[in-house]
């Protein structure tokens, strides 16, 4: 390796030219073939049993998420203008290419089934827009008397009415959303306000906003890092060479991704972030070594300096890169494909950064010459050296401070981790005062809820089970309990609601008959009657053809995991009773899938975290030929991960798809610091044979480089705090925190442990 690198030094132009040619090839593929994948369903592992079942159920019952268009008139909706808006908007939505006509529901499309002494009347609520006061009053009364629409399509305060348009998951695009917004806008007047919400909007906007924000922020991050890097390295050339490593490695990653036809997922937009954080480290450590060498040997030529740099630094650069790559490759244990890809391509990028650092930086120095060290800096640097040395001495002499502090932090972190929770919510990823969140709150405050949870009751092939009154009564009871006991469950809907309604209608609209009748034949006859007089397609959404599967829909006012789990907890208490009737319970729908998906991601994260820590310990033990070194080297990572999770617990930042990925960064970066420090420590130990001197020298060399590295990356990531997308902000803050704790942990507790363990000094004793 070393000889190969040295040979390359003789052909610096060729090395750089070759790099640029290869980069151009990757760039070409990236331009030609890159595709952004925004459909969140594509993220889900399609073969996971929960998803397979949910997809099937969605097919059986036509379960689709709906766009909710809410028409608000503070003066009340029962006036010709508002009702006309409702009608016109319903019709326009029905005609849109993305929406099936029969999938649009509003007061205009709904049937009003009413009963009297004589019989039953099925009518539209209105066809022509009522203009007279009398007709408007009649409409108002009809709505109030019909539980199937009152509180569902019209708010109980009668100031809002909604149109629900179901669309398939893959239909949503930014253009479609804009089209809807423009459409809605054209209907707004001084009195009539129109709001658009619903999961497709939330999902779609999120899938677009996150990456778009990343695209905007990454260049700024790069710029800030470049500036800070310049302040550290004091050389334009060195800065540009280091940044070109980062730039090319990112290019290669995305180029390779395009070459093998893997689309860019939302998580993939974090790859540049990772490579920036990790890629600059190689350059910083190389230059740091070079500077020290130059200072010691001011008369040395560039070739001599570069040779010394390669000789001393190639192995820590390779070791850090391999350990980091292993950390990312461990993400292959995840069941979620975009995360696997993220792991693989980041690992690839890390290795590219390693190779390029070892080729471009030496070649660059050979071509452009050594960076000039400013004279005035020299004195400062010497002062600095003494600063690092005295710091090292203090750390080694006051070991208890580090140990106690670490212990306290670990305890606090573990305490904080207890509060950590997982959130699959999409809505929580938006600003709490953003339009999308406010609209959602508005609709939730007037209606049942914007998030639906589907419970699928399955009699496993036994026909007509869901005509059985006992079964329907239990379903009805369960629905009532959830609606009454849980604030977060607004409304629920199932076959039981139809039967209740038919029973009431056929008994002269007597409220006492708003129940499930006792006879199964009666249920069957009501159903037949509904098929003959109502819209039979409505029934297909709640029960299957053979009455052996039932879909119960719960409307929730929040999509966060706590809310969904609270509903699941109550529903699950019915499991025994249903199971005695031969009925199994399963769930479906996007809210539930999101919940499972988040669990999967976390499970994968925790698995990969544990796995990569084990691998890192083994690798380090192997590389430093000492198991103690492996364990000590892993300490800063462990502390970083603990603090990261602990802080999230204390600050109530839930684990989500974005924040969970942070553990990979913690390892990727933490390990770099530890390896560089360990390597230097070993060399110094060999050279000096003095335990305190070794600590001092290592601190002056690696400690300084690590400090530089931490400052550069922290500065870069703090930029993300200005992101408009909250998950990206959290990411910025937490990466910065991770860098800081890794840095502090390596220079304090790891040094203390090294000192205590007498590693590399055992033989002399």
């Amino acid at each position, binding site marked *: 390796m070393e000889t190969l690198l040295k040979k390359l030094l003789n052909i610096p132009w060729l090395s750089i030219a070759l790099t640029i040619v290869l980069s151009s090839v990757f760039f070409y593929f990236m331009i030609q073939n890159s595709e952004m994948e925004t459909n969140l369903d594509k993220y889900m592992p399609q073969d996971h049993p929960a998803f397979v079942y949910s997809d099937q159920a969605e097919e*059986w019952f036509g379960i689709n998420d709906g766009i909710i268009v809410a028409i608000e008139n503070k003066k009340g909706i029962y006036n010709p203008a508002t009702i006309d808006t409702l009608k016109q908007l319903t019709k326009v939505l029905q*005609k849109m290419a993305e929406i099936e*006509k029969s999938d649009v529901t509003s007061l205009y499309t709904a*049937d009003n089934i009413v*009963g009297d002494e*004589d*019989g*039953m*009347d*099925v*009518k*539209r609520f209105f066809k022509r827009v009522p203009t007279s006061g009398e007709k408007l009053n009649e409409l108002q009364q009809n709505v109030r008397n019909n539980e199937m629409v009152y509180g569902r399509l019209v708010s109980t305060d009668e100031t809002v009415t909604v149109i629900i348009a179901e669309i398939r998951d893959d239909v949503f695009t930014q253009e479609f959303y804009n089209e809807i917004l423009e459409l809605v806008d054209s209907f707004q007047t001084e009195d009539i306000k129109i709001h658009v919400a619903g999961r497709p909007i939330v999902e779609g906007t999120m899938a677009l906003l996150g990456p778009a924000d990343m695209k905007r922020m990454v260049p700024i991050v790069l710029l800030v890092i470049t500036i800070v890097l310049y302040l550290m390295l004091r050389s334009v050339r060195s800065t540009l060479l280091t940044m070109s490593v980062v730039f090319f490695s990112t290019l290669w990653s995305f180029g390779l991704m395009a070459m093998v036809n893997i689309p860019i997922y939302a998580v993939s937009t974090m790859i540049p972030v990772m490579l920036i954080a990790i890629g600059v480290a190689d350059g910083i450590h190389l230059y740091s070594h070079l500077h020290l060498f130059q200072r010691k040997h001011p008369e040395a030529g560039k070739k001599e300096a570069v040779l010394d740099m390669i000789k001393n630094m190639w192995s820590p650069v390779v070791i850090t890169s391999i350990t980091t790559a292993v950390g990312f490759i461990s993400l292959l244990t995840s069941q979620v494909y975009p995360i696997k890809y993220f792991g693989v391509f980041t690992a690839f990028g890390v290795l590219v950064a390693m190779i390029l650092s070892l080729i471009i930086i030496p070649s660059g120095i050979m071509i452009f010459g050594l960076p000039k060290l400013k004279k005035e800096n020299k004195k400062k640097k010497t002062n600095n050296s003494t600063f690092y040395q005295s710091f090292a001495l203090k750390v080694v002499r006051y070991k208890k401070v580090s140990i106690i502090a670490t212990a306290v932090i670990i305890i606090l972190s573990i305490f904080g981790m207890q509060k950590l929770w997982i959130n699959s919510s999409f809505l929580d990823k938006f600003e709490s005062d953003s339009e999308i969140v406010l609209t959602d709150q508005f609709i939730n405050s007037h209606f049942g809820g914007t998030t639906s949870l589907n419970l699928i009751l399955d009699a496993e092939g036994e026909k*007509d089970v869901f*005509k059985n009154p006992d079964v329907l009564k239990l379903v009805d009871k369960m629905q009532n309990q959830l609606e009454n006991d849980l604030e977060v469950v607004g409304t629920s809907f199932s076959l039981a609601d139809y039967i209740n309604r038919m029973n009431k209608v*056929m008994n002269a609209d007597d409220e006492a008959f708003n129940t499930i*009748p006792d*006879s*199964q*034949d*009666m*249920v*069957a*006859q*009501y159903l*037949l*009657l509904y*098929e*003959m*007089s109502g*819209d*039979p*397609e409505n*029934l*297909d959404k709640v029960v*299957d*053809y*053979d009455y052996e599967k039932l879909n119960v829909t719960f409307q929730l006012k929040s999509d966060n995991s706590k809310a969904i789990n609270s509903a699941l907890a109550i529903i699950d208490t019915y499991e025994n009773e249903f199971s005695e009737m031969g009925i199994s319970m399963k769930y479906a729908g996007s809210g539930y899938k999101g919940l499972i998906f988040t669990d999967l991601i976390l499970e994968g994260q925790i698995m990969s975290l544990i796995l990569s820590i084990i691998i890192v310990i083994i690798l380090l033990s192997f590389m430093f030929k000492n198991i103690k070194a492996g364990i000590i080297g892993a300490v800063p990572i462990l502390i970083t991960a603990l603090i990261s999770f602990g802080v999230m617990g204390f600050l109530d930042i839930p684990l989500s798809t974005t924040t969970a990925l942070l553990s990979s960064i913690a390892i990727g970066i933490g390990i770099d610091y530890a390896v560089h420090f360990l390597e230097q420590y070993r060399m110094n130990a060999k050279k000096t044979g003095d335990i305190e001197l070794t600590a001092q020298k290592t601190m002056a060399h690696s400690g300084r480089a690590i400090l530089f590295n931490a400052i550069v990356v922290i500065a870069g990531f703090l930029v993300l705090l200005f992101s408009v997308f909250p998950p990206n902000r959290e990411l910025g803050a937490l990466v910065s925190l991770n860098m800081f704790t890794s840095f502090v942990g390596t220079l304090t507790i790891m040094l203390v442990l090294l000192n205590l363990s007498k590693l590399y000094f055992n033989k002399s004793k």
Partner: protein
Amino acid sequence: MKILKITSILVAVIIASGINSQLQSQELTGRDIVEKVYNLPTGEDQISNLTMTLINKSGKERIRKIKQFSKDMGDVEKSIMFFQSPADVKNTSFMSWTYDDESKSDDQWIYLPALKKTKRISSDSKSDYFMGSDFTYDDLGDRKLDDDTHELTGEETINGIDYYVVKSTPKDEEYMYTRTKTWIRKDNFIGLKKEFYDEDEELLKVLKIKMFEEISGFLVITSSEMENVQKNHRTTMVLSNVEVNTNISSSKFSERMMARGM
């Protein structure tokens, strides 16, 4: 309810098929052809067993067996149907009176044996599908000749049989179909196949007549299938034991008879 008219375009009479049709065919307009279809005599009354099978996209079936009676009483047409199976709806009956006077809406009643009550049903949705099937009430014959404009678009010969191809466009722009295309046999004016196009001008449904039989001198279509190609849902209707002109008593069509059963 229009079970008699399941077939108003389907039921045709031999007598009408005719001597003069072949000669006049050149001059017939689309409207003339459809008028002949609409005006085919159907007999005074009819009794039959109807088996209606609904088949959904996963291939699951709902089979309903119905005994039906219908009678044309001049300005009003009355029909009554008794469900035979499935068992849980047995003896449920349904009666409808349809008036020639367009301004007068249908009268409908249902008798539910579990409730032991006859109830009047009123429904203003004419386009609605009949009992969850792929036939709408209009498809089953409630449509009037001049609700559409008819245009003869061509003539085709399929398997040696000559057809008129007629395009019918509803005058009401809001109607659920934008147009239909019907293949009408030149020899007996039976519409043997019909395509329905939705508001996006896309094919929505296809009606196929699978069998017609001569019964008491009348041609009765005894097997037909309607397929909704967009929803992948099908309905077949098969008539058996068809009797025409048996002089059913007018008193058969009453609320009392509904409750009493056949």
